């Protein structure tokens, strides 16, 4: 059964490591919806979050192949039901008049977004959340006219005591 799987990889922070990971995913013909990367609590170790579509066999292959990369230190699958999944989006919206401006501010508040830039003809809203929330907000903004969207890709963390560590 095709499913979306959340994979977290801890990698050595060296030049080319993202290329190794993304190149591997491409060469093995795996479907990736999103990929994001950032620093971790451990110096020299970065964390890559990937969402992969496929059945269990595909997922297992992705994880095993990632593990074979020398600079990949740890690979885990996280259960989305027991995790926090977040993404940040910056959305530049047209605001042609004061009414539109007020409405966008109002929607941003409802979605717990923040207005991070205001110009004469546009505003930039920063919104954080899961995929559904961001999609819903973007849909609302369409009627005002979206000039630009920048999204970070999803990142994920297990709730509670469980965590992705170098050694378990």
């Amino acid at each position: 059964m095709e499913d979306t799987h959340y994979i977290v990889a801890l990698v050595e922070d060296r030049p080319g490591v993202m290329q190794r990971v993304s190149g591997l995913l491409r060469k093995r013909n795996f479907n990736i919806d999103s990929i994001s990367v950032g620093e971790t609590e451990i110096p020299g170790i970065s964390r890559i979050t990937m969402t992969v579509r496929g059945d269990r066999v595909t997922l297992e292959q992705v994880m095993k192949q990632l593990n074979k990369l020398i600079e990949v230190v740890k690979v885990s699958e996280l259960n989305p039901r027991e995790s926090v999944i977040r993404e940040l989006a910056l959305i530049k919206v047209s605001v042609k008049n004061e009414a539109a401006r007020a409405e966008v501010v109002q929607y941003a508040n409802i979605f717990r977004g923040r207005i991070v830039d205001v110009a004469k003809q546009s505003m930039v809203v920063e919104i954080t959340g899961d995929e559904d929330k961001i999609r819903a907000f973007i849909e609302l903004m369409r009627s005002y006219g979206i000039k630009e969207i920048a999204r970070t890709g999803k990142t994920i963390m297990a709730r509670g005591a469980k965590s992705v560590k170098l050694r378990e």
Partner: protein
Amino acid sequence: MRMKGAEAIVKALEREGVEVIFGIPGGASIPLYDELYDANIRHILTRHEQGAAHAADGYARVQGKAGVCSATSGPGATNLTTGIATAYMDSSPVVAFTGQVATPFIGKDAFQETDVIGITMPITKHNFQIRSVAEIPEVIKRAFHIAQTGRPGPVLIDLPKDMQEGEAEVEFPDKVEIVGYKPTYEGHPRQIKAAAKAILEAERPVILAGGGVIISGASPELMELAELIMAPVVTTLMGKGSFPESHPLALGVLGMHGRKAANYAVTDADLLIAIGTRFSDRSTGMVSCFAPEAKIIHIDIDPAEIGKNVRADIPVVGDAKRVLRQLLRVLREMMRQAKTKAWVEKVQRWKKEFNPRMDYDDIPLKPHRVIKEIMDFLGEEDIVTTEVGQCQMWAHHYLGRTKPRTFISSGGLGTMGFGFPAAMGAKVARPEAKVIDIAGDGSFLMNIQELATVVENNINVVVAVFDNRYLGMVRQWQELFYDRRYSAVNLGSSPDFVKVAEAFGALGLRVEKPGEIRDALSEAFDAGKPAVIDFIIDRECNIFPMVPPGRCLKDIIE
């Protein structure tokens, strides 16, 4: 110690026990070659970088330790890539060095700059670009460690010119710790027990031995297992030689051009014990009807191979030799009378019934006859390399081997032009052995320039050209599956291989009659120089038996 980068490279290589480097210098590697001038390492100047990579690979496969090759930046580096990809597909430990433009020029499209790190990422086990002179010893130590341990594979080190020339304080580590690299060698005891239990219950077991058996040196354990549980043994192309094909339990190679008895046995087996194999499509035929009745025990050091191509009922991750030892310890205690008598008799009847004929007297020569004479001429420890195509499959099917590391062939990538430079590397690794390349005329031409290398360096290998003036395997497929429309496969009459050999300073012989084969082999091996024998074979002789692509192993045409 304070020293230049190039000196640190050479010192590190000496500490790794490197005896020989195959390579070609160029602008971006002159500082390294300046150091090699005084070094206690033999350098063999090949005539094309592809030859250097294959030679290092051939050396590695025969020697069981890393083979080293070297090229300059840009075109030198790109010329290595086919050889690196070949080594990668067949899990061969090659360490490749490439020159690179000096650090300040990287990314500027400088003369002879290429992104060899990017290019070789998907075809190396790992690669490195030197970023500081001080890190050179550590990186080289890591490279050799990665190349030679776990599932072996090629590692490339890119050497910017300023890193070769610059000086720094360096220290040479005795070992390295790589946090993300910890191969599993021992099999999990629970899996070993499960495997033993399945073996004890089996009535129709078959052992499938792959290249991993050879890499881990597990041939003695394989023999003990086969004889203890009385199971027939089939091998893949890469596993050829892991089990003596003369043994009563040996059924020979399986696959698209495998022995009929081997393909039948796998199809009828109730237990398949697969050791060190990745279940290549050329070995399995259509996966859905591969070993359809068998429970599958899959022993492999690479966890990613488990379940990749073929389902595994009992996976065991570990080194073939160690896992077999663990398994034997359990089995020796539990084994009573093997229940396989009727099965072994059955497969041996197949073996007898389907034993291929080789003693043809035809003119032009039948390849089978040439293979038979070569096989009879060689000793057990002598080495056969092959090119790729019909010549390779004739050798694979007909040329029996009994010892590991004596059959060297490009299995995964299927690289035409591999066999001759690989033979050169093999001969350098084992000068006392006879080394012969089973070649086609198409393949031989792809690295024929290495004749100059073997002549200049007295590397006396013999090339047996199975000369049919066709790209024979493609022609065979066109004959069988494309209505005999022979598109772009006719190689015509050029060159004259005898004259080419002579022009390079090698011995050239032409053989057209069966009665001349043996004398020609004697003359070639006694020539005191490299030799090329041009065997004029039946132009449209096919390699049979054959499992057509996408069919089951038992659907054999012949």
